[in-house]
Structures are given as structure tokens and as C-alpha cells.
């Protein structure tokens, strides 16, 4: 029995260090929280699979009733709990990254434009001037506060459903009204913003999103025809 536990612990440590080192290789020496969550998840999942397989299908008859139940507690409850937590954390944190958005080919024209140092779009200017330091897609597409996070996950889920069922429109378009609060959170306090008469006169319209900041100051991303032109 102690041999089994020893083997499992060794696997856990090996996999943990391996996963975190592959992550670190991509992002220089810095280990991000996503990498840690991911490593924990991978380790827990590997250990869990091995444990459950051995317990249920290999050593079942040789284990005492008490030991079987103790190992099931670990394999069916504790390790899945750890995996669920670390996967959720990976998804919640990881989907904020530009790389996560760019993992879908539909987003390539948008990310390519954002990282293009000569693009005049709002997204590109915010990116290259470091006005938003990280998670640039997420920062502007998810409203501040808890409802924003929920809306963000809702949109992500919907996008995923459309993507895998191949029911998304081409070209893709932003659905509904853009939330001005995203812009105003930073800009509203600036002198440059408040010296424009219409900004102050239209506060009510901005609050209800009946007038969008990007109507005058956009477009935030290349337009459908410009995206078409960029594609090879």
C-alpha cells in the first residue's frame, strides 16, 4: 500500500515541475498564476486517473474495504475537486489573455491589427501605447464589476457555441450596444475629456449607451471590408 502512495506522490511531483517548466519557457522566467493553476490541474488529473484506474480495475480485489473507501475519497472527491478548482481558475484567468482570444482563427485579423505598430485603430493605439498593460481584449470587452465578468463569460460561451456549431455570421459583428463605462472608467477623469462641451452635455446618453463613444472616436477594430482585404 505504502508503495502505491509513494509512486503516486512521485508522479505528482514530476508532472507538476514538468508542467510549470513548460509554461515558464513560454513567458520568460516569470511564472504566471495561470501556469501554476494549470500545473496543479495537470498533476491532480494525472494522479487522479492513475489512482482511480489502479484502485478500481487493478488492485480492487486486493484492497481492504476501508482502504478502498479512503482511496475513493481521494480519487473521486478530493482530486476532482482540486482539478475542477484549478481548471476553473485556469479558464477564468487564462481566457482573459490576448493569446486565448487569438486561439480562435476568427480573431486573428483583430489581434493582428491590434499588434500592428502602424494601425490607427483604437485597439492598436491602446495596445502600442501601453494604455492597457495586459489582457487588452478582456479590458475593453468586459464591463467592470461582477456583472461584467458574468457578461464576459456569457459572451465567451456564446461565441464558443457559435464557433463549434459553425453558426457564426461572416463577417462577425459586435452584438448590441457597446458599454461606454469601459471607456469612461479611464477617460472621464481627464481634462482632455471634460473640456469637450458635448461630453459633459451627453453624460446621460453615455450612461444609457444610447450614444457610443466609438461612434465619433472609432472604429476600434478594422472594418469587415478592411479585414477581408488583409486576408491572404
Amino acid at each position: 500500500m505504502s508503495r502505491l502512495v509513494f509512486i503516486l506522490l512521485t508522479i505528482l511531483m514530476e508532472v507538476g515541475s514538468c508542467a510549470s517548466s513548460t509554461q515558464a519557457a513560454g513567458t520568460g522566467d516569470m511564472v504566471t498564476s495561470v501556469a501554476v493553476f494549470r500545473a496543479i490541474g495537470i498533476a491532480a488529473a494525472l494522479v487522479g486517473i492513475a489512482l482511480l484506474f489502479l484502485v478500481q480495475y487493478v488492485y480492487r480485489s486486493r484492497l481492504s474495504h476501508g482502504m478502498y473507501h479512503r482511496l475513493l475519497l481521494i480519487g473521486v472527491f478530493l482530486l476532482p475537486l482540486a482539478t475542477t478548482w484549478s481548471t476553473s481558475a485556469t479558464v477564468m484567468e487564462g481566457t482573459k489573455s490576448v493569446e486565448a482570444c487569438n486561439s480562435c482563427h476568427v480573431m486573428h485579423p483583430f489581434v493582428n491589427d491590434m499588434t500592428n505598430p502602424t494601425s490607427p485603430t483604437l485597439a492598436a493605439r491602446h495596445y502600442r501605447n501601453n494604455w492597457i498593460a495586459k489582457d487588452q481584449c478582456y479590458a475593453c470587452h468586459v464591463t467592470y464589476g461582477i456583472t461584467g465578468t458574468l457578461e464576459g463569460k456569457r459572451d465567451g460561451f456564446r461565441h464558443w457555441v457559435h464557433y463549434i456549431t459553425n453558426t457564426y455570421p461572416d463577417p462577425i459583428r459586435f452584438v448590441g450596444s457597446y458599454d461606454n463605462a469601459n471607456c469612461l472608467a479611464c477617460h472621464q477623469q481627464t481634462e482632455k475629456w471634460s473640456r469637450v462641451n458635448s461630453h459633459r452635455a451627453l453624460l446621460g446618453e453615455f450612461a444609457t449607451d444610447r450614444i457610443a463613444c466609438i461612434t465619433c472616436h472609432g472604429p476600434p477594430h478594422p472594418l469587415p471590408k478592411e479585414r477581408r482585404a488583409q486576408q491572404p
Partner: protein
Amino acid sequence: MIDGTDESTRFISRRDLLKLAGTSACAACLLPLTGCENLWKRQPAIAVDRWEKGVCRFCGTGCGVTIGLRDNKVVDVKGDEEAHNRGRLCIKGLATRDILYSPSRLLHPMIRKNGDLERATWNEAMELVAQRFKDAIETFGPDSVAFYGSGQLLTEESYTANKLFKAGIGTNNVDGNPRLCMASAVTGYTSTFGKDEPPGCYEDIDSADCFFITGSNTLECHPIIWERIQDRKRSRPGATIIVVDPRRTFTTLHADLHLQIIPGTDVALYNAMMQVFVERHFIDRDMVDRYLSFQEGDRPRSFVDFKTHLARYSPERVADICGVSAAAIREAAFLFASSKATMSLWTMGLNQQVQGTASNRLVCAMHLLTGQFGRPGATPFSLTGQPNACGGVRDTGSLAHALPNGRVVTNPTHRQEMEDLWNVPRGRLSAKPGLHAVALFDAMARGSVKCCLIMCTNPGQTLPDLNAYRRGMEKAFLVVVDAFHPTETTIVADVVLPAALWVEKEGVKGNGERRYHLSPKLVDPPSEARSDLEILVELADRLGQGQLITARTPQEVWDEWRKISAHSEYNFEGITYERLKQERGLLWPCPSETHPGTKRRYVPGEDPLATGNGRFDFYGKPDRRATIWLDHQEDLPDPCTPEFPLLLNTGRILEHWHTMTITGQTPTLRSIHPDYLEIHPYDAHVLTIRDGEPVIVTSRRGEIELRARVTEIVRPGTVFATMHSARHLVNQATQAAHDPFSKQPAYKRCAVSVRRKAV
């Protein structure tokens, strides 16, 4: 399942599972009814049934819009991503969603009875109008009636009015508000190229490396064009922006070089810049040898004469006249000439001057001399103030001196061509130029013009030296067709007729870059309002001119008009309604239905009318060479004296348009007040005026009360007020002095005194 207890201890029963699934399915179906659609996707702030493409109602940028309708009402407006504005709209454009439902819409005809305007039927009103016009024509001749139109009328409407008055009634008294805003650009282009309208297009902005913005507060007055300029600067930070403006406007804050000149000294400045071109060998000799001619007044001149002329304008001498340093002038000239592609943009600052024509053609000359012409990004480009001044008024020749497609009434050949095209007897068109805007209202005051039909404009607020010309409006029989009441003009009218507005009628507009685009009819006009075209057609019938005005719907008029254009260098026969319904407008010349339109004129290969293999073909001129004019800086009227020591400049702000009859009523913009006088702290100190105090501005013609805004935006010695507000009519102070060629008044400069209002 093995024994009876299992059923109750099951995690979830089958029945519960079915119930849960059923409830979830129902909830999903009912989601849209509960208002919780947000659970699936983000919802628009304004619910819309359908979207239609259209064109913005306001300025000459001519932005494409998509109009959201719900229950047959306009509820939302967005920028059209497919149009040249790339989905952008300014705050005025956004406000168009509210303009149709303004509380000041005029809903029924009114006739003045016993001094008051009273409600009348269309029949009553039109009968009275026709009778008065007929009486005047019979008793005093055709020149006793006039039409005063607008750069906001649709092309079909301006064309029909022009035809009715010039070919039907037989008077050239057809003018309009473009005289107050575009006339100097027209004379500038025609004297240089022989033909009106800009040679370049908006797309040139995307390729220009130097922007020479003179007499234009582009950021506030053409915000969408400004954003495009900014886009160029953002993608190419090395691109330079030079702004020439007497005020430190928002536009100048983004400039690499700001020349804050004294109002009215443009001619000296441009001459000095050209002197630097000569001095530093920036002149394109090939242009001079093959494509340019020189002229001073009626006399042809040589390039040598031109250089001698310029010698009097060294930057050092001009620095004192303009109030900027010689170094700044030299730098501006260097940036202009050395860039790979320079684009000039200008508007009212150049046009509304006594030397407006000279300023316009000198800017064109700067481009021609340095070869900054006819390449992507290298072009002179005048910005337009109204949505259809170019297409509707300039192209149709709805001005007192003009005939369609660049023809003039004084040219017998031009008259004959138009008589043939309009199918009227030879000699029908009058050879006498009609009365231009200021002269027209002067003639009303003197009594020689008895009746005037005013459409879609508000001269009661926009004419210069208002107190003098308002008398004329009160004296004449004035028929005013407008969508709004009261305005400063409808209140003095004898008959007021309610007009359809924007998407309540269909027609073609021509924006600042020669782009014709279709503004569709999407909703019915309110109550009894009618389109201006319907009103003109009915007037023609009642005046017995029905056989002349055979085209009676917008499309019929357009088809007649585009076929007439084929007999000129403006040829846009290929721009049909069918194409316009599909595309976001087309740039003329466009001679056939398969032609894609023309971005750059006078360039063989691009412009279908340009011939030969050379770099350019200036086919508007008999010798096929563009003309460089030798113009001198003149002494300007209404000079400063100790009694009137300050120069008043007038202009616009971002949030309002013209006389605010439309923007002053929209819920989003009406809270922004334009009633202030900008005054420099230095002048304010001398006059002991504090910020926010009421002040009286007095000129040689009248006085107005405004609130002082002490600011360094203006130069010391100058003050600034907007032309928007009807509460304080700044044009009571401005002067009627005008450009000798274009007859455009000098709104940008008059001498005033300012004093604190006695409490």
C-alpha cells in the same frame, strides 16, 4: 431499485428530471418575452426593426449613415461602415435620429393676414403665391421675382428651381446660401482650372504626408474628416500638420506648426510661401513649362513676371503684415514643398473674405508650382459646409451668374447649349446676370424685387449686416419654405410652407469630394408637409410652366439631369438611381454605367475627360494649362480705428450647425449654448472685462450683447463669436463687404468695440 427504499433515496427521480428539462426548455423559449435576452447576448440600447442606408443631413462631409426604424419612425442613426466615413459619425450626425420629431416642425401652410401668420390650406397658400408671382412678372417683368435656395436642398430640387426660374420665368435671379459659404471656392477653382469642384478626394488624406489646413477648424466643423487626418498621423507619425488660423482652435492643438495670422492677411502669407518656393528652388519646372500659365487681371504674365511679383513678399516683410514670424513662414513653406505629398484643406476662413477668390487660387497655385498635385495625397481640397452645396447648387449652376455644369449666363454659346438641352426657344435665357445674395436682399429693400421664394435656408439670420437686409425681407412678398417655424426668416414671411425634411423625401446629394449619393425616403412627412420638389412642381403648374417641368418625381428629374451632364466636362451620366441604391455614392466624372468614378481630375488615365499622355490635362482651360494668378494683398474694408479697435471673427462650434434651427431643438444638443464672445485676457484687462460678464459688441452697423469668455484662444486685438445663436444675432455686426469676383461676404473680419454692459 433493488428494494423499495432505493426509489426515495435516488439522487434525482426520472419525473423530476423530466420536469426540470421541460421547465428549462420553456424558460429558454420565453426568454425573449421576459426581457432577459441579456442572459444570452448583449442587447442594443435602442431597439430597431430594420436598418436602411442613407446620408447625414448636416455638413458637406456627407457621411454615410444607417438609419434604424421602428414602427415607421426613425429611432437610431449609426455611421455606415461601408461609406467613406468608415462608420464614424459626429455628434450632429448622431442627433439626426431626433430631428424629424422636433417640437418646432412646421406642420401646415400659413399666410400672413392682418400682420399675423395664420393657418391656411395648401390650395389657398399656393394660389396666393402663384397670383403674386404672376402679378409681379406681368407688371414689373421677370426680374422682379427671385429664388433664394440652399445647399441643403436636394439636387433635383435645386435643378428644378433653377430651370423654372431661368428657362421658365426668364430671370437669372436664382441664388442661395452657397453664395455665403462656397462662392469663393467656386471662383478660385474656375479661375485656376477653368472648372469648379475639387480635383482630389477624401481618399487623398490617407496618402498625404503634410496637411496644410488653412482657414478651417476641421476638428470642430468637419470632425469626421479630421479623424481621417488623425488616422494618417497615427499610422505615420512623421506626417506634419500645419494650421493657419487666427484662433488657437482645437485643431491647432494637434498641429506641428500653427501660424496664428491676423484675419484677412492670407494673400500676403501665401505669396510669401511661394517666394520661399522660388528662393529654395522648390518650383517644379516641368509644371511651369508644360502645364501652367500666369495671369494678372486680364493680362497674361510670364514666370519671370511672377517671380518679380513675389519678390515684394519676402517672409521678413510679410511677417509684420500677418503677425507671425518669418521663420514660421519659411518653415511652413519648407514642410509644404518638401513633403512627398501635401494636401491643403480649407473652408470658410478662406472663403468668407474680401480676398476670398485670391486666397483660394493662391492655395491652388502653391500646389501647382511645387507639383503637389494629381498624385495620391497631393491636392488642394476645399471642404464644404453644406450637404449638397457642391452637387445641388454648384453643379446645377443654381447661382445668379451660372448655368448648369460650369456654364455662365454671360456666354452666348453656353446659353444656347442650355436652351437646346432644356428644349426652350433660343433667346429664352436672359443674358443679364441675376442678383447675388446680398444684392438680392438689397434689391428687395429698394423695391425692385417684389417676390422671393426662399427654400430651406434662414437668411434672416445668416445675411451679413442684417439690420440693413431685414428691411428688404419685410418689404418684399416673401414665400418661405422650411421644415421649421419659427426661424428668423419665417417670422417675416408672407407665406410659410411646411417642407419635408431629410428622409421624408428622396433625392441625390453631392458632397465635398464630388460624390453623388442617394438620400432615400424612409418615412412620411408629418401632417401636411410636402417635399420641396412637389412644391416647385405645383408652383410651375400654377405659373403656367407645367410643359417645361416635365420631370416630376426625384428619379425623373435625376435622369433628365444626368443626361444633360453628358454634354459637359461634369459628365455623370453613368450615375443612375439603381447604382446609387446599391453603392455608397460615386465620384464624378462618371460617364458610363460601368465607370467606377474618378478620384483625381485632370490626370490622364484617371479622369475619363483628360486626354494625352502628359502628367496633366487641364481641359477646363482653352490652352489646357492651369492658371497661376498674381494677386496682391489689399487694404481691407472696415479697418480698425480707435473707436473700433478690435477685429471680430465669426465661426462655428462642434455641437451646432448653422443657425441652430435643427440642432437647437434636439434633446442632446440644445443644452450647449454658443452665446459667448471670446476675448484675449490682455484686451479684457484693458477693457476691465471679467470672464462671464455680459458685454456689448458694437460695430459700425449694429450691436449685440454676449457673455465674455476670457481666453487665450483668440489673438490679442481680435474677438470671436459664433454665428449659431438666434438670441444674439452676430450678423447685426458683420459687414456686407464682399469679394469682387465671388460676391461672398467677409464674415470673418469686421472692426468692433467691446464694452462691459452697464448694470
